[in-house]
């Protein structure tokens, strides 16, 4: 009897140890605003949602498109995309996944109440959906739209069983939070944690962890400390200042990769006359905005020592950039390298443009948005001053900064943006600001070049991927030659985990616990 009890106890201890070993806690750097996958286009929401829901098309770690709930996608004619769906997939509520759920999801996306950032930006090119059989979906677009597969990597599929107008609150409470994903949600405490259990019926490769807790620890120091103390096993967005120290610490390992987030400067083109933040070398008013002169823009980009910024300011947690996307991302233009740092040539260009004594400019930037943002503009201010452009640096808190940037107040200013591939910045950032078309929406500097626009018009209606990529590269080259904006660097994404674990770092900043495993 005693022996049997001891064996039973030992067995019990073994199973609890095993259960414990399969629990994992991951710490996020910001809090999601909802569990509803269609409520808010916001990265932290996506980080939580990728564990609960799946998309028709997924992204691999290098941001290439891979099959998700759709096994294949083809443009069968100019205005129709056909998707073949994965069979045998079940939602967490037990209902089977079929084409009707896709149609239901697309109908629901634009109807989310009070959404602060709607996912309809990814679904509105689809004017109708046909479901010829349960595992085929045909999406009709008004015109040729080659970017639909990329847009679909953002739209999570929910089951039609949720009925008409499912409420955002019911997703947060867990009542509606049924997806097809690797984990099912068991509890959500806003601003604190999400608890999830493995979905053993998931169609993807088996996930190692039986139980997943996602905690929100926005404070950088606290997040690192929680990892060092062993309270969490994986953290995202490791602060650059801690990287060197963590590398030397035996308790943790790092995983890093180039991100899709480009940090760049806008040079204002909206003012043709005087620019409020630019004056002559002695503070006198100028009749025209010098930034409209290509030679001035070339001088400003050439004056920036990008390798020095990457090494000193970013502590090597970035790559110097000369275009929108890095090598390996679709649309990257080979040979379009970061402009070479050449202060002498920059000075000569300024003289040629009629500013032998330079001018005065205020360089604006946020101080609480991007990694080391305030320090980057200080460094650039000094580099510009060296070629005779006397630069005043003004770093402002983001809520105020973005409002003023959107009103075209600033002359030169820093922003950052994650590009899924190269068409996206061409269409939204560099294309002429055209509200009717919805293009150039974030062209804050109001850059406008008819040649460039014609090129983008053409590539946006080109179905063939190879031809389109060539056109994208041409447009890319044109924008950079014309210094439509000043690329600085692509950030690195860095994760840290307890030693003994391995993680696949991703370009798109998502933290997928499915990619965390005990190291082989």
């Amino acid at each position, binding site marked *: 009897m005693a022996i049997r009890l001891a064996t039973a106890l030992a067995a019990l201890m073994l199973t609890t140890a095993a259960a414990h070993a399969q629990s994992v806690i991951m710490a996020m750097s910001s809090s999601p605003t909802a569990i509803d996958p269609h409520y808010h*286009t916001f990265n932290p929401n996506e980080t939580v949602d990728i564990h609960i829901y799946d998309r028709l098309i997924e992204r691999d770690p290098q941001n290439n498109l891979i099959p998700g709930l759709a096994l294949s996608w083809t443009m069968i004619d100019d205005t129709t995309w056909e998707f073949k769906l994965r069979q045998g997939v079940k939602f967490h509520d037990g209902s089977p996944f079929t084409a009707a759920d896709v149609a239901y999801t697309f109908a629901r996306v634009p109807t989310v109440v009070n*959404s602060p950032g709607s996912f309809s930006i990814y679904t509105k090119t689809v004017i109708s959906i046909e479901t010829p059989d349960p595992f085929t979906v045909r999406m009709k677009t008004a015109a040729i739209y080659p970017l639909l597969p990329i847009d679909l990597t953002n739209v999570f599929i929910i089951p039609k069983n949720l009925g008409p107008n499912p409420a955002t609150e019911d997703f947060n409470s867990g009542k509606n939070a049924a997806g097809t994903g690797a984990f099912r949600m068991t509890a959500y405490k806003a601003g604190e944690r999400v608890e999830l259990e493995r979905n053993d019926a998931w169609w993807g490769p088996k996930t190692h962890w039986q139980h997943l807790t996602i905690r929100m*620890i926005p404070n950088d120091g606290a997040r690192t400390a929680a990892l060092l103390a062993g309270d969490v096993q994986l953290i995202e967005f490791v602060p650059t200042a801690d990287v060197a120290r963590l590398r030397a610490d035996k308790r943790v390992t790092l995983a890093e990769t180039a991100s899709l987030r480009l940090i760049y400067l806008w040079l204002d083109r909206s003012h043709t006359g005087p620019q409020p933040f630019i004056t002559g070398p002695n503070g006198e008013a100028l009749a025209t905005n010098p930034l409209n002169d290509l030679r001035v823009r070339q001088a400003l980009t050439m004056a920036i020592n990008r390798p020095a910024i990457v090494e000193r300011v970013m502590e090597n947690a970035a790559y110097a950039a000369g275009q929108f996307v890095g090598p390996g991302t679709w649309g990257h233009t080979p040979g379009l390298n970061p402009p070479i740092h050449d202060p002498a040539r920059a000075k000569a260009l300024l003289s040629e443009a009629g500013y032998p004594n330079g001018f005065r400019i205020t360089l604006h930037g946020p101080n609480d948005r991007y990694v080391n943002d305030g320090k980057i503009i200080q460094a650039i201010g000094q580099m510009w001053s060296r070629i005779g452009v006397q630069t005043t640096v003004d770093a402002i808190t983001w*809520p105020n900064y973005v*409002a*003023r940037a959107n009103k075209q107040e600033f002359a030169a200013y820093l922003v950052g943006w994650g590009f899924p591939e190269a068409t996206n910045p061409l269409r939204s950032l560099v294309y002429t600001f055209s509200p009717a078309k919805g293009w150039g929406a974030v062209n804050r500097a109001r850059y406008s070049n008819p040649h460039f626009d014609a090129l983008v018009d053409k590539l946006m209606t080109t179905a063939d991927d190879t031809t389109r990529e060539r056109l994208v590269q041409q447009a890319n080259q044109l924008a950079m030659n014309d210094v439509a904006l000043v690329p600085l660097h692509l950030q690195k994404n860095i994760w840290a985990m307890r030693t003994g674990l391995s993680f696949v770092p991703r370009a798109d900043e998502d933290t997928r616990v499915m990619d965390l495993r005990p190291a082989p």
Partner: protein
Amino acid sequence: MTSWLLRRLIQALFVVLAMTVIVFLGVNVIGNPVDILISPQADQAERARAIIALGLDRPIWEQYATFLWNAVQGDLGKSFVFNEPALRLIASRMPATIELAVTAVLLSIVLGIPLGLYAGLRPNSTGGRLIMAGSIFGFSLPSFWVGLMLIMVFAVQLGWLPSTGRGQTETLFGIPWSFLTRDGLAHMVMPATNLALGNIALVLRLTRAGVRETLPLDYIKFARAKGLSPARVLAVHVMKNILIPIVTVIGLEFGSIIAFAVVTESVFAWPGMGKLIIDSINVLDRPVIVAYLMMIVFLFIAINLIVDLLYTVLDPRVRLETRE
């Protein structure tokens, strides 16, 4: 008593009204929440839609009038960010902050007053000097630094306490509390200490100063001469007379701990109201900012009321109604 209470409430209403006007104008001057909340991928049409959805397309006075009208009916609006009623959002975070603040205030009373008494009664002893020297650290060290140091020492190096978070909770009256579970208590030790440090120092110094001031007075000498026990002299004659300033300070500090526990809450990832208000300010979530500040104004008024009532208990000479 009732007219005094009524006057207080009317004053409070005016404060709240002025505060809402300031927040409305302030947020409007700083920027537009849509600029912050919207995806960078969004086009012009989507931006316009979001502005209309949040009611930001209407003139500011009209937004304010709508707010006032709804507020009178008890509706303070929905958060721009979470699309949940602002009040419910705040209420869901309140218990975490309250239990932390109450623990911190209890700590400052339980530790601050005895230490202060000791330092006051034996000002020249080594212990008394040590306590006074230590108290300087209590209020001069920045709390975010102390918080991180606590984590580094007790969680990372020694591994005695969990580094961050709220731990396991237990439900009482339908509200989850940390102090009811062992794990929750372990999670509370460091943030509560961090929050209490400054207040312990403050209470300690006030107590000591009071004791030092009171001891040489005639009535204490007389009490001693009467042959009362030292304990009774201390408890009745000294304490009762020095408690008024201490109660005032503890009351005010309790208010500010609840309202501004944000540093401690972010360092320890404690999911309370402080974190909520800072996040809301960062994204200009006006309904939450307004609702939060309204609640804080009422909280301070309530605390002041209680403090005033306590005065009358401590000192019978104090009257609530001042005669004109």
